[in-house]
């Protein structure tokens, strides 16, 4: 039964390959363009652009988690560390080098990627060890940046004031752009030879090496991309709120939200993290702001139920509903 089912699914799609090629090529661009367009329309209907900025950033972060966890299996609990480093590098650039906001944001992305490079040795670890050690690393970044002894460099615990560079239009535009780019990058990777390579590494790193794959290097690229996305995200965030303290940008909640949004939507899919982030962040802003503890309760229950009953998230649920409809439910 199982074999038959696979045959049915695989072979027709093979026949249709030529016909659907343009759709395959276009879909990463579509996946990126639709959310961007919705954002550009939404800001005219709904003028609290800061909330939309946050949502766009969370979509990007969820895609970052998708790239590193979905494609390589490494779960970085300390993802917020790159977010914070990005915010601080960009802030430093604005204050000390007189960079304009948009340029500083890109520099923040470079900062995030450099922080990622520093943590490269952690890839020796796997599973829970990796996840928790990156968490410690994120907290270590925080302890260093916020240290009163370094006030002359980072302004220590007293935060940064970027009010001079504040520009709500620009920061909104950059946030939406980041969301679009992150979705596009994730989608292009998924469909590329590189995506196939990452899946091979995730399945069996040694076997992948025997297939000629430079495992460490190829995994590193994915890590750098994810770290850069978080760096840019943090930079835009810091710029958009314009006055921030270390604990606002080095906040473990950033990791938690990004991971749960991605997981809720469906790790490894492209639409999943986008929709997961948009939906849950919206619900958070409706329910969570006035009753945070009830939201947290619901949210904890969602995590437990997801892990137990739907580890592939919304995307996985939709896929199995579709399969059931097409094949009468016998397949799984």
């Amino acid at each position: 039964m199982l074999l038959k089912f696979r045959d049915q699914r695989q072979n027709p799609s093979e026949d249709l390959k030529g016909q659907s090629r343009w759709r395959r090529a276009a879909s990463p661009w579509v996946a990126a363009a639709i959310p961007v367009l919705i954002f550009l329309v939404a800001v005219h209907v709904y003028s609290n652009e800061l909330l939309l900025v946050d949502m766009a950033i969370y979509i990007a972060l969820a895609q970052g988690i998708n790239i590193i966890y979905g494609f390589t299996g490494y779960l970085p609990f300390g993802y917020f560390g790159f977010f914070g480093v990005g915010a601080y590098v960009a802030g430093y650039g604005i204050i000390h080098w007189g960079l304009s906001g948009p340029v500083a944001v890109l520099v923040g992305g470079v900062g995030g990627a450099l922080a990622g490079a520093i943590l490269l040795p952690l890839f020796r670890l796997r599973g829970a060890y990796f996840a928790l050690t990156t968490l410690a690393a994120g907290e270590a970044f925080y302890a260093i940046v916020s240290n009163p002894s370094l006030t002359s460099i980072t302004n220590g615990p007293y935060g940064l004031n970027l009010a001079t560079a504040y520009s709500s239009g620009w920061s909104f535009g950059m946030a939406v752009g980041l969301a679009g780019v992150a979705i596009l990058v994730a989608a292009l990777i998924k469909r590329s030879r590189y995506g196939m390579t990452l899946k091979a590494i995730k399945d069996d790193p040694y076997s992948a090496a025997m297939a000629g794959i430079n495992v460490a290097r190829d995994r590193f690229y994915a890590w750098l991309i994810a770290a850069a996305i978080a760096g840019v995200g943090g930079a835009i965030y810091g710029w958009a709120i314009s006055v921030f303290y270390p604990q606002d940008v080095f906040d473990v909640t950033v990791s938690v939200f990004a991971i749960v949004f991605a997981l809720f939507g469906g790790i490894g899919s492209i639409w999943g993290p986008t929709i997961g982030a948009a939906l849950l962040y919206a619900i958070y802003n409706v329910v969570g702001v006035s009753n945070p503890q009830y939201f947290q309760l619901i949210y904890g229950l969602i995590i437990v139920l997801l892990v137990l009953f739907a580890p592939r998230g919304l995307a996985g649920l939709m896929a199995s509903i579709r399969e059931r409809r097409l094949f009468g439910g016998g397949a799984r």
Partner: protein
Amino acid sequence: MIDQGVERVGEPLLAVQGLVTRFGKFRALDGVSLTIGEGESVGLVGPNGSGKTTLVNTVCGLYPASEGSISFAGVEITGKRPDRVAAAGINRTFQIPKPFFSLSVRENVEVAAHHARQPHRVEEVLERTALLAVANHTVDTLTAAQQKRLDLARALAMSPRLLFIDELAAGLSPNELQEVAVMLRSLVDEGMALVVVEHLMGFLEQVVHEVFVLTAGRIVFQGELRDALADDTVQEVFLGRTDSAHS
């Protein structure tokens, strides 16, 4: 190209010198030296835990060599990363196949062919390993024998000059066994060097002439398979394990 020039006729393809692999205090390989010539096919036999798979893993770069050296085609490869070893022209199959479960059968082969810069070989390799019919299937739908062949296909897609076959025969039916033997012989005929790690003597006979016998991390015999079976030491080594050979 310079390497090719220096390489003399008769110089071994693989030369292992005094190889030691330690796990803590345990010496899994205890001074192994052997050479394998271009296009040669040899068997590697020995009881469980004698270090056969450790030898393959060390040569392929999974375990670091504690002492000794490994060179391939005149180039030192000791301590090289597995992907470098693979790129140099050594490949292997695994005792328990390690295919990429989230990729289709074809993609499994494509990944390897792509990284060996030989994308055109995909169809040929699939055909040769009798996997063309299931090329678009996912790996979890394959039979155990098909998964073993997929392992082989992934290795062949890299066009290796030396191929380690790690217990391919175990668990195959006599028919499947026969097919695999034919396949391996044809590889030898094309000039590929083979090292076959195997317990089944009948199968080994069809593929190789010469064997290395390994026990407790040392090579205790090297020579024709016939002679090995007659050798007292080898007899002793194997009598100890014949009853568990098919378990």
